[in-house]
């Protein structure tokens, strides 16, 4: 059995998903599970055609909850490590082994691929950029380690971290810097490694319109209440 699984949440990604999955299959010999988040297009069929496992959510739950579905699946199937990637192809699969390395050796629980540590052609829009700079500073301060890219959805996890992502404590509503602070406060270790990321080909990103403002508010509130909670919470079943 393979010891890790690749989790891809996908919402209306038909046309891009095939290319993304083929790209992964070309460099990594691992099972791929696509969580189809209530897509209205041919996302699920496209994923099935590539041979990936497809989990169909009955309606759109949003990125975090779709991701969490992937982790619940992975734990159920007995995987002890997982890599999460975006469906739009912005994460370069050649970085997968780099991400997995420190999770496999057990030095950290989560490895995050940062687009700002290495060479990158990623240019975020202004309000996004403000949020990124703000939260990476807050997260760096609160966790006592330098964080450059808390938004990155390109991550590798060990079993302990997978259990946290699958638990009810995981903030499914825009998981971001607050997750890193939660990880830190529950005694888990994480690190960033440089990865290549491509500009997302999508015209409308997940953060557009009024959403960035809500995102700012949610993140501030989420981080604040995280600090009010118990530091090493009891594991909930």
């Amino acid at each position: 059995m393979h010891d890790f699984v690749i989790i891809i949440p996908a919402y209306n990604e038909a046309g891009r998903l095939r290319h993304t999955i083929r790209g992964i299959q070309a460099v990594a010999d691992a099972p791929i599970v696509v969580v189809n988040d209530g897509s209205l297009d041919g996302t699920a069929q496209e994923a099935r055609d590539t041979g990936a496992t497809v989990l169909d959510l009955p309606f759109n739950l949003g990125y975090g909850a779709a991701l969490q579905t992937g982790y619940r699946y992975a734990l159920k199937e007995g995987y002890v490590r997982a890599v999460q990637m975006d469906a739009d192809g912005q994460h370069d699969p050649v970085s997968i082994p780099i991400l997995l390395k420190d999770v496999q050796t057990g030095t950290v629980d989560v490895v995050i691929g940062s687009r700002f540590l290495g060479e990158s052609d990623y240019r975020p829009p202004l309000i996004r950029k403000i949020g990124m700079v703000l939260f990476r500073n807050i997260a760096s301060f609160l966790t006592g380690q330098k964080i450059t890219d808390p938004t990155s959805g390109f991550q590798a996890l060990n079993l302990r971290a997978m259990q946290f992502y699958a638990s009810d404590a995981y903030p499914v509503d825009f998981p971001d810097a607050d997750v890193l602070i939660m990880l830190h406060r529950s005694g888990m270790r994480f690190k960033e490694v440089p990865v290549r990321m491509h500009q997302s080909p999508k015209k409308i990103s997940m953060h557009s319109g009024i959403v960035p403002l809500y995102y700012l508010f949610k993140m501030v509130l989420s981080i604040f209440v995280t600090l009010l909670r118990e530091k090493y919470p009891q594991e909930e079943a």
Partner: protein
Amino acid sequence: MTAQLKILSVFIGVSLFIYIIEMVRRRKLREEYAWVWLLTGLLIVVLSIWYDLLLYMSNLLGGIYPSALLFFFGLLFLLFISLHQSIKISKLTDDLKKLAQELALQRYEKK
């Protein structure tokens, strides 16, 4: 308080009370939520009939207008009930998420 207003507010309070009971009887409203509304209906009736109580309370708070006190109570109640509902909605959203995830996992297993 004029007699007309008194009649009107007693009528509103009693109608609300009857309507809530009827909704519970038809199982369109859960008992869990009904008590707050029943209490409201009752309070409207009591305060309309027993005007002295309202006067007494407004004097207690420094001689404000009894009608202003009624508005204040009304606002407070609306605040309370919408917060209560937000909390319920949050829980329902969470339950719904879990249910959808579980369905996706079960559907996969069946294949």
